[in-house]
């Protein structure tokens, strides 16, 4: 069964802290994505990766960076957390038997920055 896991369901951090959100998929997918979800704005793409050590900016990359050292793991980094980064963060992956387009999502990490 397809599985995408995220390291934390809930996270509370202080302004200025460096924050790491981890995502792991067990489907040998090539492509991985980080989104943030906010009411009324839908899912907005932060960064995505087509392969190990490859990354591309999405629609809202400012204030974020990513790391993909292994195929199964994609990390989102908030270099200096700010209150406007309080949000739900969703990781997804795609590739393999499901075709090139279906994205499989993790359960999300709700991040609060105080």
């Amino acid at each position: 069964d397809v599985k995408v896991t995220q390291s934390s369901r809930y996270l509370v951090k202080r302004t200025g802290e460096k924050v790491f959100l981890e995502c792991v998929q067990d489907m040998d997918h090539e492509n991985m994505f980080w989104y943030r979800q906010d009411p009324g704005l839908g899912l907005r793409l932060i960064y995505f990766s087509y392969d190990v050590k490859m990354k591309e900016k999405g629609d809202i990359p400012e204030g974020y960076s990513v790391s993909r050292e292994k195929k199964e793991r994609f990390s989102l980094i908030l270099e200096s957390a700010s209150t406007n980064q309080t949000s739900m963060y969703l990781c997804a992956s795609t590739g393999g038997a499901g075709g090139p387009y279906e994205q499989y999502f993790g359960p999300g990490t709700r991040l609060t920055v105080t």
Partner: protein
Amino acid sequence: QQQVKQSPQSLIVQKGGISIINCAYENTAFDYFPWYQQFPGKGPALLIAIRPDVSEKKEGRFTISFNKSAKQFSLHIMDSQPGDSATYFCAASTMGQGGKLIFGQGTELSVKP
């Protein structure tokens, strides 16, 4: 720039009724239009998808209607049930983009018993 616009933002339907959610897109290069369903506390999951070479696709109580000339597509949920209460997202993608999706703003559906 929002390339996929979704409406309404919220929808309340009585049990047994028809739920209709609409989406409009701008980019004529889009060639894949999925709908995702998200329950509280869960990540979105693919519900149904359509390609622009057909005008309608039906899976059980869920139907996508697609109007290429109008650049619009919609999700119809027939005989809506309380278990259908969730947030629904339309999306669009272009072949060769590695599965990158552009999502709509989401619709929170509540089906009343």
